[in-house]
């Protein structure tokens, strides 16, 4: 990465919190492993290391507009429900439900209005569920455990059961929900959930630990153990690497227009532009900067060209993908961010940490990063 460094506000050691972001925080009973908002933005669900899930109602289902400089630390209430015997390691929202996955081999589905009526969507025998992906288009749920990927609908009806022959590390649906990209050793397998078409194998030696599919459908991007991104262009069928990361860059997030892929793994949020001829030969925009920190979580705004990054220092920064400057949403507390998610309304951002601290940020519509 060679672009000029756009220093954020943290180089001086003075953390200036943006008046356009109001933070409310609370302490969860266990470490946060993943978080997601419901499709209507009214509920935030956080999966935790003790097998339970915390549910928080956002103050306003529509997302109350934030007035610049409004006081934060709004009182947040949460309830928890124990859904897994061992750690709950992922959560996703589909239709009006949440799905959580656990190291007890279970995927559980529930309505946030009635979590006590949760039921098992699918159960693997004695194997951790490693990944979950959902398609909003088809309301299908893909689950990975060991070398198997199972696709079910929200009633639990089996739609596909695929043995990849290598341990699956991550899953991503295409925008239409017709195909799923499965990352594993030596590459990615793309399989169709709707047609008997033959699987497409994208090969690159090594361990692929994350996969993402551009909303345009054109690009498949994996993160590798060797601290690189590997990109396949499904139109030209060419592939290339993007590197220079000091750490593994397995957190990947696309802006809604497919123009930008934001990644973890550096002391800045790296934002690769896929517009025009793609990122080959162009350096990424470097957004924000935290001295001594590494980005370990990223989330892209559902509409705007904004991305949020969570750091190992505990900071959360929000920046515009085209520029590089960022505002500070959360000050450092030394506890690494483990999860980060925007609400579909775009008005809330949530972050959780290894120590179980949870922050919900209300973000002003006029957030305009200079």
């Amino acid at each position, binding site marked *: 990465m060679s672009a000029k460094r756009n220093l954020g506000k943290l180089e001086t050691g003075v953390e200036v919190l943006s008046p356009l972001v109001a933070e409310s925080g609370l302490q969860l009973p*266990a*470490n946060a*492993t993943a978080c997601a908002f419901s499709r209507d933005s009214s509920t935030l669900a956080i999966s*935790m*290391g*003790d*097998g339970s899930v915390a549910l928080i109602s956002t103050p306003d289902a529509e997302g109350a507009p934030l007035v610049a400089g409004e006081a934060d630390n709004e009182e947040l209430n949460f309830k928890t429900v124990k859904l897994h*015997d*061992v*750690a709950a*390691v992922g959560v996703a929202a589909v239709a009006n439900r949440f799905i959580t996955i656990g*190291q007890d081999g279970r995927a559980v589905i529930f309505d946030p209005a009635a979590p006590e009526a949760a039921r098992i969507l699918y159960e693997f025998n*004695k*194997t*951790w569920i*490693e990944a979950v992906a959902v398609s909003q288009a088809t309301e299908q749920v893909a689950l990975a455990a*060991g*070398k198997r990927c199972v696709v079910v609908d929200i009633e639990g009806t089996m739609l596909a059961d695929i043995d990849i022959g*290598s*341990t699956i*590390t991550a899953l991503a649906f295409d925008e239409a929900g017709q195909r799923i990209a499965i990352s594993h*050793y*030596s590459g990615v397998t793309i399989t169709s959930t709707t047609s008997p078409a033959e699987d497409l194998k994208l090969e*690159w*030696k*090594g*361990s692929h630990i994350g996969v993402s599919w551009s909303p345009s459908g054109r690009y498949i991007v994996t993160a*590798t*153990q*060797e601290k690189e991104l590997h990109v396949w262009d499904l139109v030209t069928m060419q592939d290339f690497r993007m590197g220079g990361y000091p*750490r*593994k860059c397995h957190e990947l997030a696309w802006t809604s227009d497919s123009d930008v892929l934001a990644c973890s793994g550096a002391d800045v949020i790296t934002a690769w532009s896929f517009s025009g001829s793609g990122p080959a030969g162009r350096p990424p925009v470097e957004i924000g900067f935290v001295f*001594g*920190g*590494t980005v370990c979580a990223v989330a892209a705004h559902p509409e705007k060209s904004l991305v949020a990054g969570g750091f*190992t*220092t505990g900071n959360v920064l929000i920046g515009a993908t085209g520029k590089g400057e960022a505002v500070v949403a959360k000050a450092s507390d*030394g506890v*690494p961010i483990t999860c980060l998610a925007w609400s579909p309304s775009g008005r809330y951002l949530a972050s959780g940490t290894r120590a179980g601290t949870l922050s919900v940020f209300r973000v002003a519509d006029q957030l305009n990063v200079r």
Partner: protein
Amino acid sequence: MSDVQEGVAKVPVTLLTGYLGAGKTTLLNRILTENHGRKYAVIVNEFGEEGIDNDLVIDADEEIFEMNNGCICCTVRGDLIRILGGLLKRADQLDGILIETTGLADPSPVIQTFFVDDDLHETLGLDAVVTVVDARHFLETVDLEHECEEQVAFADIILLNKTDLVTSEELAKVENKIRTLNKFAVLHKTQKAGVSLDEILSRGSFDLKRLIEIEPGLLDEEPDDHEHDDTITSVSLKAEKPLQPDLFSKWMREFIQERGVDVLRTKGILALDGHDQRYVFQGVHMVMDSDWGRDWLPEEKRESKMVFIGRNLNAAELESAFAACTA
């Protein structure tokens, strides 16, 4: 590398190796069932027939991959990175993690995994390689099975088990053979893997900060004279004059580049010219971990000590190359 979470205790990880039937399972069962008040997770390669139904026993796949740099020494256990990362997502704090390798496995991919993966390096510490040796069958298997020999060579701690099933003469022969392969491991003679768990867990054998002393015990004992070239031996080196950092680093780099496949383990505590701190390092094949240790004490003799365990090691050549680094 600076550690973001400096001061946070790392969870110690013990690698348990041993040829089939040596007594690994006996040891694991003790660790899982004894009332020691500590919480360990165990990563095994296959559930036993009776099936251990326990959240703390995790089945690994032993999936090994080569790093894309083409170095055959840098094979890494991808399943371990995944499983250990998953264990760290649990709310319960573990006192330790044990990784059992299959009886036929070369332990180096497991060790290399800890050197290669930054995330593991920060949160977990490879504590020690513990090898269980079957006193009755060791001498038969060691000449036939490559892995049996390697497991002993990689060990920090050896449990010479089933001592009640052999005569004292036989036991002496086994011990002698172990010492030709690995002079430096701590050796416990046991029956039914009966050793205090404190002797094998949380030993800090891979912790550079705890690499205080290299005690080349039994240095004067020469190995049996009928060894073939491929046999593993250990070589220890000593230099009383300070080493020239440039010369030493050039020699090590070239030597490891060329001979990394043969060199199983290295350790060193060095006195470098112009530095008041001890320089400590250790490696497995081609991967190395090094750091500045504590200051040399005023009364301490500033001498450099190094250990190589590997195949086709020529002690005389190594000695003269090491000596040349003091020039």
